C-alpha cells in the first residue's frame, strides 16, 4: 500500500527560524535522511504559499488567482510518498519528520490503488 505523508508545518516554520545555522542544517539533513529510508518512494519540499497559484474552471472558463487556496486553514509544506505493508510503518516514518516535533502536524492518508 502507498501512503501520502502531508507535512503541515504550522508553527514549526517559526521554530525553525529561531534555530542556529548548525541546528537548521541538522534538521535539513534529517529530511534528506528520511528520503533515503527504504519504502520512501517520493518526497519533496514545496515553495512557500506566496508562490502558489489557484486554478478553477467555471462555465468553461479557467480562473486563475494569485496566492494559496485561502479557505484552507493549514498550508502544505511538503510531502513524502511511502510504500508500506501496513499503516504503522507509515506512521513511524511520519513521526520522524522534524516538523512533527516542532509544532507541525503530518497527515497520513492511504493512496487509492489503481
Amino acid at each position, binding site marked *: *500500500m502507498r*501512503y501520502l505523508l502531508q507535512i503541515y508545518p504550522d508553527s514549526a516554520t517559526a521554530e525553525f527560524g529561531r534555530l542556529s545555522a548548525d541546528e537548521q542544517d541538522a534538521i535539513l539533513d534529517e529530511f534528506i535522511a528520511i528520503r533515503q529510508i527504504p519504502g520512501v518512494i517520493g518526497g519533496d519540499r514545496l515553495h512557500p504559499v506566496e508562490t502558489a497559484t489557484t486554478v478553477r474552471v467555471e462555465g468553461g472558463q479557467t480562473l486563475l488567482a494569485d496566492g494559496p487556496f485561502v479557505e484552507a486553514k493549514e498550508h502544505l509544506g511538503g510531502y513524502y510518498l511511502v510504500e508500506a505493508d501496513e*499503516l*504503522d510503518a507509515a*506512521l513511524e516514518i511520519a513521526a520522524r519528520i522534524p516538523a512533527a516535533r516542532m509544532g507541525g502536524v503530518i497527515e497520513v492518508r*492511504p493512496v487509492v490503488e489503481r
Partner: protein
Amino acid sequence: MLASLVGFLGDFDLAEEAVQEAFALAAQRWPRDGTPPNPGAWLTITARNRAIDRLRRDRALAAKTRLLEVPEAVEDEMEERTFPDERLELIFTCCHPALGLEAQVALTLRALGGLRTEEIARAFLVSEETMKRRLSRAKRKIRDAGIGFSVPADHRLPERLAAVLAVVYLIFNEGYGGRVDLAAEALRLGGALAELMPDEPEVHALHALMLLHDARREARFDGGELVLLADQDRSRWDSARMARGREALERAFALRGRGQYVIQAAIASLHMDEPRDWTQIAALYDELVRLTGSPVVELNRAIAVAETDGGEAGLALVERLELDGYQYFHSTRADLLRRLGRRDEANAEYERALELAHTGPERRFLQRRIAEVGAYPSPPQKVSPRERPIRGWDDTNRGGKR
C-alpha cells in the same frame, strides 16, 4: 473464531458474514449428516471457504488480498488442525490509535465481547443507526488505511498496550455507574488479557483494579441510595472477587510492576483495609500524580492528605486545582469545607456539585448533605483529624468513594 478469520481476511464485515453463513450451513447439514468430530474446525474452514468464494466473485477485492494463493483446506486436515487464538491481535487492532476512542470501545465490544450493535448503542445512549455508522466507519478505516492485524512490535507495545487497557477500563467505568453488563464485559476482557499476556504487570494490575472495585458493587447502594465506602456493609463485599483481585495485584507486584494501574490497584486494595493506612495511600497518590500529572489524581491525593495532615492541608491542595465544572471537585471541596465548619461555603459548593450531578442516587446524596450543612446550629469544634471519626468521610476520585 471471528478473530482468526479477521486476521485471515483483513476485513471485518467479510469475516462476520462468512461466520454467519457457516453457522447457517451447520444448522442445515449437521442434523442431516451428523456433527463432525471437530466442529470448531469445520466451522472455521467452512467460513474461510465461503469467504474465498465470495472474494473470487469480487475480483477487485480479491486483487487486494492474497487469499487466492492460499489453497483450500482439505477435509482430512480438519481433524488435526488447531487454529491460533488470535484474540490478542484482534484487540490490538480494535484499539489502534488511528481509530477514535469511541470507535475503539464500540469495536472491542462488538468483536471481542460479541455484543450486538443495538446493545452497544443502548449502553452508550446513542441510536442504533449512529452506532452502526460508527462501527462501519471504523471497519472501513481498518481496511482502507491498512491497519495491520498483529500484536505490536516490542518498541510499540507499551503505548499500544496502554491504549488497550484504557479502552477496557473505560468500558468498566461505563458499567461502574450501574450498567452491570458492561462491567462484566470489561472483567471478562481483563481476564482474557491476563491469560494472553501473563508477563505484563499492568495487565494483571488492571484486572486487579476492576475486580476490587467490582467486589464492592453490592454494598455501594442501599435501597437505591448511595453508600460511601466508609459506611459500607463489608459483609456485602464479594470476598471471592476481592481475593482474586488481591491475587492479581500480587502477580503484578511479582512482575515488578510500578505503572499507573499497579498503583491504582494498590490504592484500591488499601482502601478495603480496616483501619485504612492513609499514609500509605497518600504516598501512592504522590507517585500516581508524578506518573500521570492528572488533576483528578491530585484531587484524590488531596483527600488522602486531609486524612494524614488535616482538613486545611487537603483544602489547600484542592483549591490549587483548575477543575471547575467537574462534579467531584465541587463535592470534595464542599466536604472539606464542611469538616472545617465553613458551612456557607460548603453549601455553595454542594449546590454547584448538585447542578452537575446526573444520577438520582448522587443527587439525593448531595441534597442530604445540603440539608445537613444547613442544619448545623453552630460550627463544629476544631478537632485534629485523627480524633475525628472517619464516618461519612469521602475519600476518592468522586468526593464520595462507593
